[in-house]
């Protein structure tokens, strides 16, 4: 392959992985926007989403096969179940601590992450699970490039989910309530908005998107494991910061930017794929030094 083709191939990979980052980053950014919490368990929610999808696909495949129909059914069910899991976590672990010192709720989020992570580890005996589908590897060739139909469908699906979210946030009452709460919770309470319910809804939507990303990642990589959420959690956070934490379009953009940067960065001399994760974290640290508000984030008022 020529250099251009390598770069093009990497751009396509970056776009795909970046769209997973975006979906997970959305959950981070929404929760952060509404209750200013870094939900450390969010990466693990993504992982749980993948495993729930895996289990459901196992059930559905006997009835409707593991083709697109089965996958979509498994993904939608996983989104609902994991969305509810997000709501339960919010209710049990975070809500009692909303008025406590910040450190307490952050540590609770870390504890939640440990619980999910180790629970799945115990359940799966720490093994990789093959995410078997009937999709095959057919696709289209463009010169030396080869793009599978699966890849195309995944990108389209991500785009659809994001468009759906955009519509939900901007056009529905619930979305407006979310945005309002992010600005001023007390005022919302006075205006008769059910703040607790809206926060729960935010967790539902964020977790459901992460679950969708988890299932799609399973389809894309072909296998899943209990620690798949750890690194993606960190990266999705990086993506959210790149876009500007709290900003929903920012999270979408940030994920794609990070995916592309990573894909291209690993092609640089000296930066092999084993350094891929380091590359992302270095970006995060540099960003926090030079532009902590990200691309689309609002500057954190004039307060110093």
């Amino acid at each position, binding site marked *: 392959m020529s250099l251009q083709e390598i770069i093009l191939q990497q751009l396509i990979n970056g776009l795909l992985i970046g769209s997973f980052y975006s979906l997970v980053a959305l959950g981070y950014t929404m929760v952060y926007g509404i209750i200013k919490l870094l939900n450390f368990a969010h990466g693990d929610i993504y992982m749980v989403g993948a495993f729930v999808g895996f289990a459901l696909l196992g059930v559905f495949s006997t009835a409707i096969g593991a083709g697109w129909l089965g996958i979509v059914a498994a993904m939608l069910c996983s989104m609902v179940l994991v969305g509810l899991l997000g709501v339960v976590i919010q209710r049990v672990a975070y809500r009692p*601590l909303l008025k406590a010192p910040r450190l307490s709720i952050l540590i609770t989020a870390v504890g939640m992450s440990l619980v999910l992570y180790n629970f799945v580890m115990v359940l799966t005996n720490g093994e990789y699970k093959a995410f078997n589908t009937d999709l095959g590897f057919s696709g289209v060739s463009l010169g030396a490039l080869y793009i599978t139909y699966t890849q195309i469908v995944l990108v389209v699906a991500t785009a659809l989910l994001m468009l759906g979210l955009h519509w939900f946030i901007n056009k529905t009452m619930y979305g407006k309530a979310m945005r309002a709460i992010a600005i001023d919770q007390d005022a919302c309470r006075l205006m008769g908005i059910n703040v607790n319910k809206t926060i729960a809804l935010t967790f539902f939507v964020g977790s459901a998107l992460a679950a969708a990303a988890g299932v799609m990642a399973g389809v894309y990589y072909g296998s899943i494991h209990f620690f798949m959420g750890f690194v993606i959690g960190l990266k999705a956070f990086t993506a959210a910061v790149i876009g500007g934490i709290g900003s929903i379009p920012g999270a979408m953009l940030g994920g794609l930017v990070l995916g592309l940067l990573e894909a291209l960065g690993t092609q640089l001399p000296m930066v092999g794929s084993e350094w891929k994760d380091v590359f992302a974290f270095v970006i995060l640290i540099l960003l926090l030094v030079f532009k902590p508000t990200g691309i689309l984030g609002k500057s954190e008022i004039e307060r110093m």
Partner: protein
Amino acid sequence: MNTEKNITTQTRLTDNIYAGLEKKPVLYGIFALLIVAVLLVPQFANNYLLEIFTNTWFYIVLCLGLNIVVGYAGLLDLGYAAFFAIGAYTTGILSSQFGMNFWLTLPFSILFSALSGVIIGGPTLRLRSDYLAIVTLGFGEIIRIAARNLSITGGASGLIGIERPYLFGIYLSKIHHFYYLFFLLVILAVIVSYRLHYSRLGRAWQYIREDEDAAEAMGINRVQIKLYAFVIGAIFGGMAGSFYAIKMTAISPETFVFTQSAMILLAVVLGGMGKIPGVILGACALVLFPEIFREIGQMRMLLFGIVLLIIMIFRPQGIWPERRN
């Protein structure tokens, strides 16, 4: 408001027990007894027990170090194992590859851990405190991945054959040598923690934890004061790492995974952030629990996570509450 009320009533129940422990003569008596007991243990205990005790001393030092960051300054460091790794690798590399004497590697270990503390903390501490948590998490991964992939750190298999040093003419090789050496470190760590806590700097950490704006209005440079805590914590971790390297004589990247950082954090939170006896208790629990319940194996971290959640939700002040007035 509600949680605040809960805390006070819960504290009152255990107040009487702890009140007795905190009277000064009683306290000194207990200290003296404890120290004598600790010094006598090697006369009776077998190597397995000594190994566990030594391990406990080691974790106490690490936990006291993290306590300065989390307990005193109220900052969440999720990559504490990274500083531990930096100390261990500094000593490991300098002694195994450059033939440097262990004691001479200590200043380098302090230097490198402090320097990395400044590099990570300096820019991050200017921002909201949550950013520090995620950056330290990322930093922990960077250090581990770097240790895995560099040739100077021995790659995935790590470093072996780290030279053990002499102390007062004794070649440190037996487990009871390390038992005593690490206990000495515990005493040092306790003194340093205690003196820092009751100093101008210690008070400044508390002011910032209580109310950042008011602290700034009092002329306290919040970034600088937090950085102090972060860097001192880093130095503790680095030092502990150096001593770990000579005790084990071999180190590998898998010692410094996130789980390690999370466990140290758990011990600090379990005992009660900011309180020296509580943190010591937490560290003991951390080492002893898996030794006593060997059969739980894989379930260990799951249980730790559940314990962490329960503490934060129901008893955020830890098992050793701070008594004030």
